[in-house]
């Protein structure tokens, strides 16, 4: 099977403006700098509305930044064909969208779009991804939309992994999951990172998940990277007041984005 080697991602001085409801332009991201090393798992934590989802959308060019640049293994992504770029970067959006049809249909989707032969239910690569995502074989024939949200989250992850990206980017993958399911997904991500030499960037406000799985972490607040470092150091010994406040606020407040 194809195992992509991990890509590095460098985000340099990225700003993003967007018009608000009154048509005035608002700075969503204000000079973001971030480095995801090859084969590492990095998390970006921060309150909702801090710019995490926008940052994610810039990485696979669902949007282009107002200024600054993003390099994938040294090449400015603005110069890459977006379709090629999206092969190298697998993005898992926050709400898993399931296409009509079975789980297998959903897993084959990327190949369908690329006009490549569809992997069969006994394809070695597909079986490996299923195992990695802890999806049982008998799910393949089920209607994807009848699955639980946790299972849909996994199908969405498996669907992206199957296309063999070199960088995996996830937006709040645990927001709809209960604690045990979220922890399990965290372990899955660690396995993926190790077994596939994959670089992973995860946006989340789930601090417990971030602390458990990440090699590196960054704190994104009000459109700025306030602090970054090894995750153990960042969470145990935060330097900035904003991060200290964020870490000590109750979980439900972090999710609602009342902090910061």
């Amino acid at each position, binding site marked *: 099977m194809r195992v992509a080697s991990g890509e590095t991602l460098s985000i340099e001085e990225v700003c993003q403006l*967007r018009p608000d409801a009154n048509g005035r332009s608002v700075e969503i991201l204000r000079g973001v700098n971030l480095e995801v090393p090859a084969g590492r798992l990095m998390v970006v934590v921060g309150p909702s509305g801090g710019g995490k989802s926008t940052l994610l959308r810039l990485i696979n060019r669902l949007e*282009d930044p107002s200024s600054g640049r993003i390099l994938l293994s040294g090449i400015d992504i603005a110069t890459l064909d*977006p379709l090629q770029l*999206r092969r190298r970067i697998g*993005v898992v*959006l926050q709400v898993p*969208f399931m296409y009509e049809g079975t789980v297998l249909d959903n897993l084959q*989707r990327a190949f369908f779009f690329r006009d490549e032969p569809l992997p069969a239910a006994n394809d070695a690569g597909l079986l490996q991804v299923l195992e990695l995502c802890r999806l049982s074989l008998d799910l393949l024939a089920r209607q994807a939309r009848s699955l639980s949200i946790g299972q849909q989250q996994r199908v969405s992850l498996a669907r*992206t992994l199957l*296309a063999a990206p070199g960088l995996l980017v996830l937006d709040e993958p645990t927001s709809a999951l209960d604690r045990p399911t979220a922890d399990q997904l965290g372990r899955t991500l660690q396995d993926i990172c190790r077994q596939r030499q994959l670089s992973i960037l995860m946006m989340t406000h789930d601090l417990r998940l971030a602390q458990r799985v990440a090699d590196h972490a960054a704190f994104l607040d009000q459109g700025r990277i306030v602090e970054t470092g090894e995750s153990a150091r960042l969470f145990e010994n935060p330097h900035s007041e904003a991060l200290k406040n964020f870490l000590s606020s109750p979980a439900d407040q972090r999710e609602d984005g009342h902090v910061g």
Partner: protein
Amino acid sequence: MSGSVIDLSIIDLVLVYGLVLIAASLARFNRIGQERDLLWSSLRMIVQLLVVGYLLKMVFTIASPLPVLLILLIMGGFAVHAVGARVKEKMPRFYQIVGLAMFTGCGGATFFFCALVIGLTPWYDPRYLIPLSGMIIGNSLTGASLAAERLTAEMKERRQEIETSLCLGATSRQASAEAVRSAFRAALIPSINAMATMGLVFLPGMMTGQILSGTEPLLAVRYQIAIMCVITASVAVTSFLILLLGYRAFFTPAHQLRIQP
């Protein structure tokens, strides 16, 4: 005595307009406050139809292609304008797209029917060309409005699906295929329903008119069948073109959806 129509004099018309007054007084009596609208609309109808009548009479006597083409162009312009009035949320480049689609769809259907099927002589014979293309344009207008309206709505409703597809490497065409299909389906529904109930609920206008003016009923039926087929094709081509040109307007060349969260 087929071929001759009973004359309707001005006095007859005055008599009939009395019926509108009955309707208006009923409205007044029940205090629904619409008697003024009713009278105003009836006056508008009279003036508009008279203008059209004199215009047609003029075009019939001039017997030259230019005024006929001019009238067709004006009808098309009004139709595009009407589509614009019906569709609230317009896609980018709305008027160019709708105009081009209606010109191709309606123009093509009218040409096929008038020139190739019934073989008009002269080719611009206003007695056929104007009412037939009027029916084609009028029906395509409904299809065009539905297609344009549904496309924008589908693009918004399916934003999540479309962006998931883009993330999985789809082109903008692949990512919007479902939205386009669904809008196309909506655009065809009125034509399908109209054909299925044709003749059951009421007699279609063109057929009724032909029968009234003395055409043999079975010939009128044949014309009705023909015009319905032509209308269906025109609706399909017009809506399809709107969708084909329209979906691109929602994406950048870099396969990015312009509708942002």
